[in-house]
């Protein structure tokens, strides 16, 4: 069995597949991410054991939120999971299970999922752009049988604005305007509680700037939009696509798709890490 794990800031998904193919799902379990690292690892290992049914583990792929070390052994920085930082997570999860274990950042996994199993399957270059708690993007390009990914801090693109600060110390970045946290601080409401259409029109304007800048910087065949805010907010999704189509003149537009993977995108990306 192939095990794919998505460790997110609030939720964790552990899934098992009979092949490296999302349609061959054997089991899937979703639970809250325990802030206590040791407890959480124990829980993940229990879920795997309880669902194995005496089958051999062929490999484990892990998608992890935050910044990973160069060797992809552990997380070295995360706003959400402070206790997970610098812990040998890869080794601890896979202990006695298998030596075939791979860890990747969640955004990279998103791009890999789309490039391997999703809308990017038949293309060489895929740009994955996601809007959820944060804004991020990743560019996947295929050389021979390998897929390489460049991670893009699209939420950190700067504009000449009104000088809005961001906790990172940068000012006037896209996330100072549209990030979930920044919006809450500015308007004292959760984004989904804000009904003001004029405001949303502006927010989409900032988002489309970030998407267009990613497209200008990377020659892609297909753009896949994903993440909770895009998949669940119809106005934002449709207006964003209109803005991209009308705002990007410098280059030919790539094919634009909205991800269909929903919450499974990072798990699918983690699974793709096990592809030979």
């Amino acid at each position, binding site marked *: 069995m192939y095990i794919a794990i998505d460790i997110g800031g609030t939720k964790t998904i552990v899934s098992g597949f009979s092949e490296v193919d999302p349609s061959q799902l054997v089991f899937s379990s979703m639970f809250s991410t325990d802030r206590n690292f040791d407890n959480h690892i124990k829980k993940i290992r229990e879920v795997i054991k309880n669902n194995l049914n005496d089958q051999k583990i062929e490999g484990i792929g892990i998608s992890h939120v935050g910044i990973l070390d160069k060797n992809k052994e552990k997380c070295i920085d995360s706003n959400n999971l402070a206790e997970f930082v610098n812990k040998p997570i890869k080794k601890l999860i896979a202990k006695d299970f298998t030596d075939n274990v791979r860890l990747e950042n969640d955004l990279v996994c998103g791009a890999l999922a789309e490039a391997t199993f999703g809308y990017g399957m038949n293309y060489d270059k895929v740009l994955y752009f996601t809007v959820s708690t944060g804004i991020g993007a990743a560019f996947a390009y295929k050389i021979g049988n390998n897929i390489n990914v460049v991670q893009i801090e699209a939420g950190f693109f*700067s504009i000449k604005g009104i000088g809005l600060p961001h906790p990172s*110390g*940068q000012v006037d970045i896209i996330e100072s305007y549209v990030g979930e946290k920044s919006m809450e601080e500015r308007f004292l409401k959760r984004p989904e509680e804000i009904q003001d259409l004029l405001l949303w029109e502006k927010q989409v304007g900032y988002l489309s700037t970030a998407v267009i800048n990613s497209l200008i*910087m990377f020659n892609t065949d297909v753009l896949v939009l994903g993440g909770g805010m895009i998949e669940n907010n119809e106005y934002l999704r449709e207006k964003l696509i209109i803005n991209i189509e009308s705002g990007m003149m410098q280059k030919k537009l790539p094919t634009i798709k909205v991800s269909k993977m929903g919450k499974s995108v990072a798990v699918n990306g983690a699974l793709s890490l096990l592809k030979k």
Partner: protein
Amino acid sequence: MYIILDIQAQLTYISAFESFDSKARLRQTRFPTIYNYLASLVESKKRIQNLIDEFGEAESISISITGSTDYDKQIMTDSAYLHEYNNKDIVKDLKHEFDIPVIIEQDCILDAYAELNNLGENVDEYGLITVTYGIGGVYVKKEDSKYLVFPTELGHTIVVPNGLECACGQRGCVEAYIGGVNMKDRFLTDPKNIEDYRVWEEAVDFLAIATSNFMMAFPTKNIIYSGSSISTIPALKNGIKSGLEKRMRVYKQPKIRVSSLSNQANTLGALKHIELYKNNSLVRL
């Protein structure tokens, strides 16, 4: 012998090199760029033939052009300054005349190749940002025996939503604010003659924003600036380091250097292009 044809917005340079060594230049001639494509082709062919008559057979021709290229099709597709060359098959026309391999590439990408033998020689990766009539950005990463090249069209990244109109049709591109041609349009004088420090303060900030945005995609340790504006305007050259420190906080500040290759960067890059092409070591994304 290798022939380099460097078509810039104002001048066209034609050079002959004995080898891939930048010092092995046999001759360079230049003439004001002819905006009519066919007239320019006639003049270029004549001058290339003169070089062949003088120095013997040429192995190949490498073209540098100021405009976006479709690299797979080997055609310049879009230039704001050489409209009449858009979609003209100069590669085919020269191949037909001289019966040798001909390759073409956009000038700012070639500037990045030129730095492989210059400021990029002893590093594994670098970003090259050109600041001249337009703004360009290229990221180069050495991997095993290959060079991964990411051309970015940095000048057309949007830094002011709904801002000034750019030659590309978009609004708010950084090039609309600090590209040499656009600055000339805004202030009706050559940027070199502008003394108002506020103009340069603003220009430094725009360049810092563009550089920071470049780094959000390519968190490089080395930024090399090249092009006539950055090398001839002290306010830009001296201000960019502190400008970037103000704008970019999430990564370590890169080492910033300004290229000294000036108007020879395209030619040297085009020479390097032949070498990389011949060795099959380019991965252009």
